[in-house]
């Protein structure tokens, strides 16, 4: 091979290589340049904040934002409306029996074919009572006759197993209700307390983790003092079926109360009926910030068991929490198993300075709950900016 050809060959090779390298750099730099100009000129660009942790700079992006933590995303086909669920207590169709006993009749329709949004952008096949996870909260007074009609609209057999005292055949374990089937559970509400109800079909784990559970409250004959009452169900979703939860929530949607803080009044007694239905993980807990609560384990006593800011529960455990805030502001509540907190189980109380109009019953009506939701939504924007450093 001649020397000229060698030179030529090498020169061409080097030229091609260097041009390629230069082009790659050039294209990359111009891209980022163009992007920088875009973000300067276009005011429609979205901002995102780095989670709830303070100190993260605001990141501007030309793309989409993935932020279930702090972004108020409208969920179109949500598994539940957590704000509505929070203060919605169902007392059933009330009638008096000849002997003077109050009869409360409820209807629960089980389904197992719906795919719902359980977190912004995440769709999961949920099994539901009356179309929500958790199912509706059933409430009666001690001594009432409770009648629950189960209609199984699903493709699998389902039951309702209610905790509490009742006859064996009303336990919802052996009397399976097949697809299209019906069953009526009837029992006296006793004792007073807070209980879970859930499907008891096997595999139990499958039926529970898909969402067939809810809360059943039995009030004592002498009512508890009036309060702003709410129900909270701690749960999780294993969306990739690896027997580990991908999401942890309170009342069905991760982080919901982070961008929709729960409004409460200063010095107003708050009562939470708390139930843990979390599958797979052995424990779950509830931690309240900047405050302590009276804990009535299982709600079966009128005397509190503990004055604390931390309660740990295994699956099926529950209790009543009572507290009030002395100072206005935003307060976090979350699982103090930080993994659960950072996968969705966290929320905020927004304590308002205004004296609450009423306690208890007023908040039990659905309309009030809806008004509250509207209020919270409109205020969530400035609120989220003030947030920071609560954990």
């Amino acid at each position, binding site marked *: *091979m*001649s*020397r000229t050809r*060698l*030179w030529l060959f*090498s020169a061409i*090779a*080097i030229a091609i*290589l*260097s041009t390629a*390298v230069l082009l*790659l*750099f050039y294209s*990359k*730099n111009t891209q980022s340049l163009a992007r920088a100009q875009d973000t300067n000129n276009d005011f429609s660009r*979205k901002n*995102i*904040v*780095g*989670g709830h942790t303070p*100190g*993260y*700079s605001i*990141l501007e*992006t*030309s*793309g*989409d*934002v*993935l*932020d*279930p*933590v*702090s*972004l108020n995303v409208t969920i179109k086909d949500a598994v539940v409306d957590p704000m509505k669920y929070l203060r919605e207590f169902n007392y059933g169709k009330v009638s008096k029996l000849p002997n003077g006993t109050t009869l409360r009749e409820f209807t629960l329709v089980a389904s197992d074919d719906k795919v719902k949004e*359980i*977190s*912004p*952008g*995440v*769709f*999961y096949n949920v099994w539901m009572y009356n179309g929500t996870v958790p199912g509706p909260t059933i409430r009666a007074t001690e001594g009432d006759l409770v009648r629950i009609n189960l209609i199984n609209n699903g493709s699998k057999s389902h039951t309702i197993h209610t905790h509490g005292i009742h006859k064996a055949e009303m336990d919802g374990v052996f009397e399976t209700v097949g697809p299209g089937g019906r069953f009526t559970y009837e029992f006296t509400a006793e004792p007073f307390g807070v209980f879970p109800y859930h499907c008891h079909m096997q595999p139990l784990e499958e039926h529970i983790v898909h969402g067939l559970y809810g809360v059943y409250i039995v009030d004592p004959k002498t009512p508890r003092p009036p309060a702003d009452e709410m129900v909270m169900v701690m749960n999780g*979703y294993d*969306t*990739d079926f690896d027997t580990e939860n*991908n*999401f942890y929530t309170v009342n069905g949607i*991760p*982080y919901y109360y982070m961008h929709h803080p729960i409004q409460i009044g200063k010095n107003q007694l708050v009562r939470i009926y708390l139930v843990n239905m979390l599958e797979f993980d052995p424990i779950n807990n509830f931690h309240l910030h900047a405050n302590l609560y009276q804990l009535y384990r299982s709600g079966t006593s009128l005397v509190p068991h503990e004055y604390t800011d931390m309660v740990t529960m295994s699956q099926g455990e529950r209790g009543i929490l009572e507290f009030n805030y002395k100072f206005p502001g935003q307060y976090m509540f979350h699982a103090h198993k930080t*993994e659960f907190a*950072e*996968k*969705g189980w966290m929320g905020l109380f927004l304590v308002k300075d205004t004296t609450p109009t009423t306690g208890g019953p007023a908040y039990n009506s659905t309309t009030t709950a809806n008004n509250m939701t509207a209020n919270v939504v409109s205020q969530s924007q400035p609120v989220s900016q003030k947030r920071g450093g609560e954990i």
Partner: protein
Amino acid sequence: MRSKGQREKEERIEENIDDDNKEQEVHKNRSHSKRLVIVAAIIPFIVLAVMIFLLFSPTLQSFINSGIPLPEIAIEKIEFRENPSQIIAFIRNAGPTEITIAQADVNDRIHAAAIEPGKTLSRLSDAKVIIPFFWNPAEPYEVGITTDDGTRFSKTIEAAALAPNPDSQQIIFFAVIGVYVGIIPVMIGLLWYPFIRSMSRNKYNFFLSLTAGLLVFLGIDALIESNDIAADNVSSIFNGQVLIFIVTTISFIALLYTSERLTQRAIKKSMSSAAETTSPYTSYSNSSDINSPRIKLQATQLQMQELVKPLAISLMIAIGIGLHNFGEGLAIGAAVLLGEIALSTFLIVGFTLHNTTEGLAIVAPLAKSRKLMLRRLVLMGVIAGAPTIAGAWIGGFLYSPIATIIFLSIGAGAIFQVVYSIGSWVLRPTNDNGKKSRIVSVNKFTIAGFAIGMVIMYVTGLLV
């Protein structure tokens, strides 16, 4: 396309059938058959198109698509940035259908993130997920991406390290690394030229075999390296491992052809002045036939080979090693980027020692050729060493696993081609004074050289 012979054959058959027809009709038939050929070529395509159309029709779709398409997200690269502190994941939809990304997490904890260009990824398209996150250097991080059906995909980085930024300082940094790892060692290796030049044939063959040994090691190394990358960083949809095999084979064959052509052309050119042109493709086996009348001509040809072939081999070695070093540069750059290695003096020393042997590989075949110009030698050193710099730039700034395995595979193919050339050169028939030809068989020198070559590479490789 049919060959001319085939066409003529057909025409002949047609002529036999229509024996009585006039020539005009034969002419007509010819154009007719030409049209038939085109139609015959097109028909399968039409059938195929109809078939595909039917497959996409709703009826057949419902029949075929009985299974549920599972999403597949490949996290190809994770970068750690500062000011602002961020983790950036480069993801690709490797599944059969369009995917929407729902959220990102770091160490299995959900974090706010941005996704560019958008959260919906069509098949095979990629996106950049930017997660504002205060990361700590040298700590392991797992980045997870969850799709809209709740499936989570994750990738772990062993030790977080700041991603190199293509600023002038980093460019110079990688260039310096490239010079140290690529050019300098190769040049050092070239210094052995006078030493190799002054040795006997057996020793010379020993060093050639040594070179082959060194190169075989490099080739295997490149294949294993690209296999690792294919397994870890390339989504299964690209069939990374198959790609390695294909690219290596193509590279080998293409370079074999190129080098043979280059050599033959050079021989032919230099021969034309010496003697009448004979076929340059005369095989070596003919040369053992002493009684052949063409022996004298072949003797001249062999002499020319002695002159030209070593240079061609050396150039091919230089190119092969250059490709290999390009891959090595990519690996170094990418390793810095991926935080897999910390560039230390020790590492650079290791690479330097390791690559010095590459210079030896280039210089060994040239030992017996006369009139070697220094400039040519230096040029070959640059061809072999300089790609390290380009590799380090590309690997460090624009790491792409698929490009890396392609370059490594090309390098492997080139190296095996060079090993083949050296092998056939060592085992070539020698021609002493144009009178006697003998074939050097595998002897203790060549075997020892080959083995020692690989061992040297293995030992110096331990330093890296």
